[in-house]
């Protein structure tokens, strides 16, 4: 097995995974938007922030969607209400 990588400065990595244009954020938020589109849920995308973190232990970049506030999402197909805590 051949693994190829070059460990880059954290700042460089974060800027690559949290680009100023916001395309990476759009890519990740599209997951929620897709749930909205296809499942009829009502996630408020404006209430989610895109966060990119460098995990030094695993040498990997983690991307998260952080809720800006406590919110509830309704899923009409399953009659579920999903609570999302802040943070």
């Amino acid at each position: 097995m051949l693994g190829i990588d070059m460990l880059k400065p954290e700042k460089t990595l974060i800027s690559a995974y949290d680009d100023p244009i916001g395309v990476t954020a759009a890519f990740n938020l599209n997951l929620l938007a897709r749930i909205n589109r296809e499942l009829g849920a009502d996630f408020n995308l404006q209430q989610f922030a895109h966060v990119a973190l460098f995990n030094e232990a695993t040498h990997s970049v983690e991307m998260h969607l952080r809720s800006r506030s406590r919110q509830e999402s309704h899923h009409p197909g399953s009659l579920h209400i999903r609570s999302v805590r802040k943070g």
Partner: protein
Amino acid sequence: MERAPIPSPTLHSGIKWGPTGPIAACLKNFHSPQLACLRQPRRSQRFTPVGRKNPCPPRPNGIAPAYGNIQGAEQSYPWGAGVPESKPGNFDFRRWDPSPVNAFPENKSESGVVGQLGNGWEWTSSPFDAVPRISSLRLLSRLLREFLRWQALRNQGRVPRAVRPASCAAPSAMVSTALPIRLRRIPLRFRVRRGMPRAAMQTRPSPSSLTSRFALEVSAASPRPGTKGMPSKYLYDSVGSALFEVICALRNTASREPKNACFNCTPGKSWTTSSPCRCAELGSGTGRKTRLLLEALSRWQSTWYHPIEISPTALAVLRRELRDINSISIVGFEREYLDGLREVAARRTSTEHLLVLSSAVTIGQFRWRRRLGLSSRSASDSSARGLSYARHRHAQARKNIDLRLR
């Protein structure tokens, strides 16, 4: 056709997350369930930087629609000056049932484009399949690429003109959304559709089945208590794939350029083999990084190359980009890593070597390493195996690469 409820109307009302301004408007279109529909403009009204002589004055926001009729006058909508109503299209989701192509002959373009559709698979009963030279996915990625190019021009103080899209299935409020497109690079023939047999119509899975599958996947993929994870495959729908392609382009031209540049193998590090080889790559993307390695392999022997990639768009681009390499047979798998590796392993004969490649992103994902029974060496260990990316031109890299499989 199975009827599905209309997605949340809030999708169309001001999504302001992430980027602002035109890109938000651009993404708002992509997050709506339809693509933009375009009208063929006059040559003089195509994508032109402001400052040049142009009959259309710029709008206050700096974006001028390139719409115009045959006489060269600007018009408000693709069909003229009339407000959006049911006659030219299905605005504001007044009905869900799709109509066949050419159901609205009044919407015939003055420039000769007929059968104008806002979104084929939704607004019409004809599937939105690929037409020669362009598919819906490629169109989407092109739109995004064009937008980034447009934004770069704007950052330089050059505001290009834009084409105003109007989807016949879009809410009327979205009709005036500006979207920059360099039309000479986007054939408008995608608007012209042929009738298809009803049996070929695309249908949507029922929301309940999707919901239950989503719920199962979420519960099965929670990496930590209190944190919800989702399988990465759900990121790559048509919108996600197009965005991912833009992300790759951004990273390759900016901070992660070294990764895209080439492989720079340590001189003297070589592998040789007299037996056939299968090469599988986890998360191959569009294969730009792997080209040099495959070219090196192809000089020594015929090789099976199995890209394992979750994005169908990236796989399609890879097949197109690498098809010119001789002695390399490409069989891609649109799978997650482990599933793809199982497919490759099933095709491998007892005499074949298997070379598994992983790039920067996948090295950091140790869960699959453990599941494969690999040692838990760190990413830096992996990079210390004598291979590293470097800023070398391809020609220089080719001199350095001496890859043989032993």
